[in-house]
């Protein structure tokens, strides 16, 4: 994929990820990126509960939960995109595979997974059609290209409410064998689905408006549907193009260029705009083991992004209804046996839970090669179930250094706090939550 060059451009992810610039696209263009990282906590053990003294799941490194620190190739993706037949810009394709060690590749067998495989048809003015497996139109954190994310880890809300794990049960019954625990039955959703999307964008004055309507399986990636029920995704964004600012050279150069066939706007993933967006997704999930049945899963949110000169800012608020990921029994590593023996830590899902989350994010380009970032995010989980309600707050400080247009290094320090607001401060649940450490992370990114 070409490095971003020229003026930084609007963050129209629908355009960038689903289509190819007409008249200039290659028949096939190979691209990819590698993200090795290091993450560490102090490894505080669980302070209370049936797994007291054992590893705290929140303090263990992803995706294996075996160590409180370590190096990992979190993502290594290679793909190809283009027009297939260069003379016809109306048919585009996008193919991307994941070779890294993460929730996509660790679950569901095999070590390599297809993350994206789609075809876009651009024949109908006002309604492009994208078919296959690709990113769902939704939250900014999920929809944006992962290699331009300004932080190493997602917000708690995105990680727990939007980065979907799929289960056969809800973890509500105790397990007497590590093999029987409730755990994901396949790869994480990776903010993707298999389906069909109608989308396009148009201009009014200095505004670029985008819409997307998608129908998908709602059953994750690299597999078919499991219940005959479709997922509906709706998305709208309006973006005001701000004139005159010099290019924002932070990760702009790291994003693929975006075409501007409509005589408007710049190219690239970072540009000088103010964007408002809203999204909605609704579907059903089917459990076949404990508490088997069909459950609603709804997510919806609104947000805004601003990029202007050296400053960028973002904020988003979203709500979740149903299928709330609720951590593990006792805060322990999944499958860990309790101290008393005979009980193994399940992963839990509150099928009728509700939650909400928000974040504020700021970045400042101190130097053309150096950006300072700060993000505050909060997740309020299971707000309608008093004993299960949890509040997660995270303040992440970050620094990004850009070696060149195609590579950068990130450093993050996350101050993490969690509590059960309806339990006593010294209750087991709050002591367990207090076991969660701050986290330090470093990541290198190279795009080719």
């Amino acid at each position, binding site marked *: 994929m*070409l490095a971003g060059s020229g003026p930084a451009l609007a963050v129209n992810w629908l355009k960038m990820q689903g289509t190819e*610039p*007409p*008249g*200039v*696209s*290659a028949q096939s263009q190979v691209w990819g990126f590698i993200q090795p990282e290091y993450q560490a906590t102090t490894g505080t053990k669980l302070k209370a509960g049936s797994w007291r003294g054992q590893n705290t799941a929140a303090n263990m490194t992803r995706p294996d939960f075996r160590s409180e620190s370590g190096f990992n190739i979190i993502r290594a993706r290679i793909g190809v995109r283009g027009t297939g037949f*260069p*003379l*016809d*810009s109306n048919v585009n394709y996008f193919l991307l595979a994941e070779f890294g060690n993460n929730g996509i590749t660790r679950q569901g067998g095999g070590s390599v997974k297809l993350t994206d495989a789609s075809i876009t048809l651009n024949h109908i003015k006002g309604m492009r059609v994208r078919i296959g497996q690709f990113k769902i139109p939704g939250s900014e954190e999920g929809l944006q290209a992962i290699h331009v994310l300004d932080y190493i880890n997602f917000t708690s809300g995105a990680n727990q409410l939007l980065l979907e794990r799929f289960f056969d049960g809800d973890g509500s019954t105790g397990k007497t064998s590590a093999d029987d625990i409730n755990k994901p039955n396949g790869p994480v959703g990776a903010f993707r689905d298999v389906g069909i999307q109608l989308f396009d964008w148009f201009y009014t004055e200095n505004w670029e408006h985008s819409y997307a309507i998608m129908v998908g399986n709602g059953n994750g990636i690299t597999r078919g549907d499991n219940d005959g029920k479709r997922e509906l995704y709706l998305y709208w964004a309006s973006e005001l193009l701000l004139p005159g600012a010099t290019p924002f050279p932070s990760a702009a150069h790291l994003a693929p260029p975006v*075409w*501007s*066939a409509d*005589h408007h706007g710049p*190219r690239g993933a970072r540009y000088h705009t103010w964007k408002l967006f809203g999204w909605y997704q609704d579907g059903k999930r089917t459990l076949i083991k404990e508490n088997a049945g069909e459950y609603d899963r709804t997510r919806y949110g609104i947000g805004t992004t601003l990029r202007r000169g050296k400053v960028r800012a973002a904020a988003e608020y979203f709500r979740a209804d149903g299928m709330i990921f609720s951590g593990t029994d006792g805060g322990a590593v999944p499958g860990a046996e309790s101290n008393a023996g005979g009980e193994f830590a399940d992963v839990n899902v509150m099928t009728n839970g509700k939650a909400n989350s928000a974040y504020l994010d700021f970045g400042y380009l101190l130097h053309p090669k150096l950006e300072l970032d700060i993000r505050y995010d909060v997740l309020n989980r299971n707000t309608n179930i008093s004993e299960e309600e949890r509040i997660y707050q995270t303040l992440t400080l970050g620094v990004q250094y850009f070696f060149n247009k195609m590579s950068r290094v990130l450093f993050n320090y996350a101050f993490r706090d969690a509590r059960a607001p309806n339990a006593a401060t010294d209750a087991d649940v709050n002591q367990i939550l207090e076991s969660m450490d701050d986290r330090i992370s470093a990541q290198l990114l190279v795009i080719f």
Partner: protein
Amino acid sequence: MRFERHRTFTFLGLLISLLILLVISFAASAEVGQKLFAEKKIVLQISDRDPLKQALVLNVANNLLQHYGPDQIEVEIVAFASGLRLLFKDNVNSDRIQSLTDNGVQFSACANTLRSMSRKLGETPALNPHAVMVSAGVLRIVELIDQGYVLVKP
């Protein structure tokens, strides 16, 4: 006296004829869009599919105009073979083509290539409205060279 008037009339007639010839020669050499006082004449070739080449040829044209001034240089971009994609109507560079055209750059499109592409595509691709059709891109380049243009292939 009569002889002097005759010489005067002859002189005036010659002068007027000379002026007419001068005007005609200017008119003959001034094709559509040609700049009468251009000091430099450059023909830029774009004949491959690389998108970077498309951007490059437009950049070169722009740089030439900026250096010499739009009235002091004649620039023509001839697109043929895979390079004709530059002149497709939906090409992302159409904004820049418009801007360069406004500054006197001519974009010539090879009819031979267009016919070939039409056969492959099953329909004739729509071209940028500013594209001027020429029978063959290579022939157009040769013609321009004969007229004193310098060929540059970025």
